[in-house]
């Protein structure tokens, strides 16, 4: 008997709706992990501009949870705009606690910086580990506090909503004190961005970049522009914009800035990072679990600088763009604070610097096992040692 077309369509719709519900209720299947998962490495995720409470934010969170099963990262860096549209108790619940519930219950710690949509009193929220400070620093090292001989990785969370003199003094003082091999700064407003909506924060760059260059910051993680962008190295510093964890401005990357190494502005995303000694591996993942960027940067023992090399794509994965060395600020980029060196080595700031010139060298492509191995006996997890501002 021939079914009426309307009835058949209705059945198909029902079946599709049921399938969609099933998929929505379970974490999205994670795609391939492109990080090596080395013993004793420091692993974390980076998200930004998340706090919309939208389906997209929840989708990204599901991918983070799925990837956490493959790369058990210890903490998550939040680069601001953690809650949009207010900070009522309900906002915290629906825009943070619920989407990341599985990570929170798995003891994954979140370290927040605040964006221009965040109320400053969010610094008191227990699960953002800011200890009531709008700018703070902590160190993550393999083996935790017991391994004091290991300089580890030091993170600097800044409040770029209000970069006043006390904070600038604090940044300089803390960067100067730190002997960590990796100094990673994270905050909301990007010093470099190809965003048509916002773009590079030039005034902020003029204040912070000389400090980062003089005191050896290697990596800067930001948001504000709602997409993923890995910037060509600027004066030996690697800048990321990770602002699509819950918000998106489709097509907002201006490809004409010359700043973009890899950009992704067609869907939501987050980033995974693994640091093993002098290597920092990264993988940016879309809402659907596709890898949109991956690679490794190598950091010579301080003060020598980092040089990137691409991870070879694994079979079945999305090909990602290579990460070539950029000798300096690209043509067409806004005027740098200091003059670039004519050679492949970015120059130090024009200001007095006691450190030798950091050299970017084109390292040979680093090899890694074709299939990342899970660590059979993980070492103690990295334990952060917080240092609140004075």
């Amino acid at each position, binding site marked *: 008997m021939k079914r009426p077309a309307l009835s058949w369509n209705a059945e198909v719709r029902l079946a599709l709706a049921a399938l969609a519900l099933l998929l929505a209720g379970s974490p999205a299947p994670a795609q391939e992990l492109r990080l090596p998962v080395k013993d004793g490495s420091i692993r974390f995720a980076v998200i930004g*501009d998340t706090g*919309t*409470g*939208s389906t*997209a934010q929840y989708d990204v969170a599901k991918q983070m949870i799925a990837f956490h099963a493959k790369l058990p990262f210890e903490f998550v860096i939040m680069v601001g705009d953690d809650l*949009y*549209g207010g*900070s*009522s*108790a309900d*906002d*915290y*619940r629906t825009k943070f*606690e619920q989407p990341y519930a599985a990570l929170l219950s798995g003891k994954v710690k979140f370290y927040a910086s605040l964006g*221009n*949509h965040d*109320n*400053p*009193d*969010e*610094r*008191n*929220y*227990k699960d953002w580990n800011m*200890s*009531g*400070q709008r700018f703070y620093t902590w160190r993550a090292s393999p083996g935790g506090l017991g391994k004091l001989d290991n300089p580890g990785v030091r993170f600097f969370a800044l409040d*770029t*909503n*209000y*970069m*006043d*003199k*006390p904070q*600038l*003094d604090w940044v*300089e*003082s803390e960067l100067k004190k730190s002997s960590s091999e990796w100094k990673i700064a994270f905050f909301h*407003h990007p010093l470099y961005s190809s965003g048509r909506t916002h*773009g590079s*924060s*030039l*005034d*902020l760059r*003029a*204040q912070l970049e*000389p*400090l980062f260059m*003089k005191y050896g910051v290697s990596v800067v993680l930001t948001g*504000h522009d*709602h997409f993923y962008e890995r910037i060509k190295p600027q004066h030996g510093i690697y800048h990321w914009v990770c602002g699509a964890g*819950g*918000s*998106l*401005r*489709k097509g907002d990357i201006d490809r004409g800035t010359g700043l973009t190494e890899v950009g992704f502005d067609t869907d939501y995303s987050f980033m995974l990072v693994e640091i093993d000694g002098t290597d920092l591996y990264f993988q940016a993942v879309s809402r659907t679990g596709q890898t949109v960027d991956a690679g490794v940067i190598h950091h010579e023992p301080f003060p020598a600088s980092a040089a990137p090399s691409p991870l070879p794509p694994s079979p079945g994965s999305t090909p990602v763009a290579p990460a070539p060395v950029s000798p300096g600020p690209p043509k067409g980029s806004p005027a740098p604070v200091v003059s670039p060196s004519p050679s492949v080595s970015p120059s130090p*700031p024009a*200001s*007095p610097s006691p450190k030798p010139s950091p050299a970017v060298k084109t390292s040979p492509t680093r090899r890694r096992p074709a299939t990342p191995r899970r660590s059979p006996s993980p070492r103690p997890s990295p334990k952060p040692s917080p240092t609140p501002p*004075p």
Partner: protein
Amino acid sequence: MMRERAVLLTLSGLLAGAGCSATSKESLVPPQTVEMDAETLRKFQHEVEEYVELRQKVLTKIPPVTTKATPDQIAAHQKALTEAIVAYRKGAKRGEIFGPEVEAAVRRTLHRAFSAPDGPALIKEIKSGNPTVEGNPSARDPTKEVKQPVTLTVNTFYNSAAPFSSVPPSLLLKLPLLPDQVRYRFVGRALILRDTEANVILDYIPEVVPDPSIPR
């Protein structure tokens, strides 16, 4: 009548006692330089100190918030703080903190900054997050934005759903340094003084940003 005299006042020494470290010769951080005569600056600092004292008094009368607070505790504290400040400052008027001399000095400073070669870049950053320019991503479709209006009136609530404008660091280095409890912000073309944690506009100076493309 005392002749007003604009002096370049380096505040680093003055502020050392307030927890601000002095700028050393080795530092890359520029000094805090405020173009305001000493008496005007003192008046402004006095008004701000009075507000901070009032705020301290309010804090003793409401439930405290710790640095390991729950969302309910934070929200309750902010609500209580905001309401109490508005009640204590009932009848407050524009110009009580930004007095006439202070306002004139601030206008001169901002005019000079916006007229400089990097003025357009400063204005671009001020637009970022400015609630008359930028909205919030919609929860239904975060690729779309919804603006949240802020009413520019002294001692009223700053819409808690609205974003905050950027205040470029180079401007902060030229304006009088504020204690942690108070912030400069921009709403439209106006410079406002807002309590850092309570959603209250304490005072404002209208029409300081010379860009007609920014809605009032």
